[in-house]
C-alpha cells in the first residue's frame, strides 16, 4: 500500500501538446512543449510504475517541438519542465504472442469449469 503515497504536483508553466490522433507504436507524432525553458528535453517514460519502466530523453528544438516515434505500445508518461502528460500507445500489429497467452489461459481457466459436471 505504499503506492498510496500521493504526490501533489505543483502546476508548472509549461504545457505539453500532442497531435489529436491515436498514437501507434513506431509511427511519428508531433509533440510540442509550450512555455518550457530553452534546452529542456522531453522525458518519455514507457510503462511507468512497472518492472518494465524505462526512459528515453528527446531534445526539443527552439520552438519546443519534437517528432516522437513511440518505441513500444502501452502506457507512457511524457514530462518536460514540470509539465506531465499520460498517453496510451497502440499496437502497430496484432500481438500474436498475446493472443497465444490469452488462448492458453482461457482454455485452462474456463476449461477447468467442466470438472464441475464430473461429480
Amino acid at each position: 500500500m505504499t503506492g498510496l503515497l500521493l504526490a501533489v504536483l505543483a502546476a508548472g508553466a509549461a504545457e505539453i501538446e500532442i497531435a489529436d490522433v491515436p498514437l501507434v507504436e513506431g509511427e511519428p507524432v508531433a509533440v510540442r512543449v509550450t512555455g518550457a525553458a530553452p534546452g529542456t528535453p522531453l522525458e518519455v517514460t514507457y510503462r511507468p510504475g512497472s518492472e518494465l519502466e524505462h526512459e528515453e530523453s528527446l531534445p526539443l528544438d527552439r520552438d519546443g517541438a519534437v517528432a516522437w516515434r513511440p518505441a513500444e505500445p502501452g502506457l507512457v508518461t511524457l514530462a518536460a519542465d514540470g509539465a506531465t502528460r499520460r498517453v496510451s500507445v497502440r499496437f502497430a500489429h496484432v500481438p500474436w504472442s498475446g493472443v497465444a497467452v490469452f488462448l492458453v489461459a482461457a482454455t485452462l481457466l474456463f476449461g477447468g469449469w467442466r470438472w464441475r459436471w464430473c461429480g
Partner: protein
Amino acid sequence: MEVRGQWSSRMGFILAASGSAIGLGNIVFFSANAYKFGAGAFYVPYLVALFVVGVPVLLLELGLGSWSGQAFPQALHKIGGRPAEFFGWFGLVSATFITAYYVTILAWVLGMWVGAWGDALWSPSVALPAFGDGGLPAGAVPNPVASFFAMLSSWRNVLFVAVIWAFNIAIVWRGTKSIEPAVKLFVPLMWLFMLVLIVRGVTLPGGMQGVALLFTPDFSLMGRVEVWHGAFSQIFFTLSLGFGIMTAYASYLPKRSDQSASGLMIATMNCAFEMVAGFAIFSLLFAFSVVPKASTLSMMFFVVPAGIAAFPAGVKLFGVLFFTLLLFAGLSSSVSLVEAMALAVCDKLPHVRRSTVVLGVSLFGFVGSTLFAIPKVIDPGLDGNGTLGLSLLDLVDHWAFSYGLLLTGLAETIIVGWVLGPATLREWLNAYGHLRVGKWFDVLVKYVIPAILLFLLLYSATNEVRDGLYGHDMAGAGAPFAIGALLVWLLGSLGVAGVLTMAGAPEGAAHRVEVAS
C-alpha cells in the same frame, strides 16, 4: 449442544468457496500485479503457480476438512496433536487480524458507494479542510482521491464499519443456512456486474488495446525472481489459502463428496474471474491513460474511479455498479473469514452457543476494524497514508498478510506431508472423487510446495533486512511503528493461539460431528 450444519447442495458449497476466494484482490490487485510484472509475462508464472501450488494446497485444505469433519486447528490436531493444532490457531488468529482491516476497507467501499450516488466524487472539486496548512483547496488532488480522504478523515467511516459488521453477523449467524442463500445471490451478481463493466470497458476507444496489453508478454522479464515471487504469492493469496477457510467450508460437506473436482472448479473459477476483471481494468487503464499502482487501495479508490469519471456517459451508474461489485465480492470473502474462526471456536468449545461465539468473534473484529478507521490526520501533506487508522492498517497488513498466511501454509504442508503422509489424504480424495489425484500430489505436498513457501518467506525476510523493515530504515522515524506492528501481530497471534490450543478439549468437536451424523 448444537447440531453441525451442512451445505444443502454441492453448488452451494462451490459458490461459497469461490465467493470466499473471489474478493477485492481479484478485482483490482491482480491487475495491479499483472501491470507491475509485465502483464503477459506475469501470466505464464501465474499459471504455473496455480497448478504447482494453488490447486494442490486447495485440495489439501478441502481434503482436511472432509477427512476430519472439523475446523482447521482441530483437523491438524487429529494429525499431530496440540503442537499441530497450535499452527492452525496461529493461522486463524492471523486471519482475524486480516478480517479486522478487511472489514475496514469494505467500510470505505461502502462510504464510496454512498458517495458514488452524488456529484462530489465525480465532478465538482472537493476541498480537504483536515489536510495541509489550512486544508487542501478544491482541485489540489483528483476528486476520487479527495472524496476518499474526506470520508477517511471523518467519524462517518466508523459508522460504515458498524454497518459492514452488522451484515457479516447477519450472514454468518446461522452458519451454512444463512451463508448459502447470501452467496447464491452475491456470486452470480458479481459475474453479471463484471460482465457489464467488461462490455463498457472494451467498447471504449482503445479498450481492446488494453486487453491486448494485458496478455502480450515481454519474455525478458520471466527470468527475474521478483516476477515468480509475485506470481506464487498472488496465487496463494487469491485462493484464500492458509486462512483455514477451505477446511472449515469442506467440513460442512458430506463425507462422500467429490473434493478433487470441486477443488479444481473453485480454483479455475477464481482465476477466471481474475482474468475477466483484468479485461475490465486494463481496457479502462488504456482508454484513459491511467497509470496503475501496485496497491489494492489505490486501484480501488483512485485509479479505477478516475477512469470511470472520464466515461462520456453513465458515470454514476457505472460508479455505483463498480462499488456494488466490490461490496459483494468483499462480503462473500469477509463472511468466510469470520465463519472459519467461529466454527473453529465452536468445535473447540461445543458447550458454548454458536450465537455467543459469532458475537464474540465479531466484537473482537469490530474493535480492530474501528482502530483501523480512526480518522485522526497524522500526515496533513498527504505524502504518506493520511490518517492514523490507514497507517496502522498498512503496517498490520504487511506483517499479517505477507507472512502469516505463508507461515501457516508452510506448517500445514509439513504437517500433512511429513506427519500424516500425503498418500493418506490422496487416497481419501480418490475414494469419492471422480477426478483421480495422482502421486504427483505426494511429491508436491512433501517437497516442492514447502520449498517454494520457504523460499517466498526467506526472500521477503531478506528484503526486510536489506531495505529496512517494510522499507523503514532501522534508525528512521518509521522503524518503531513497523517494529510495533510486527510485535503486536506476532505476539498477539502466538499468544492467542497458545491460549486457544490449551483451552477445552478437541474431543468435544468429535462429539459434535457424531451428533450431526
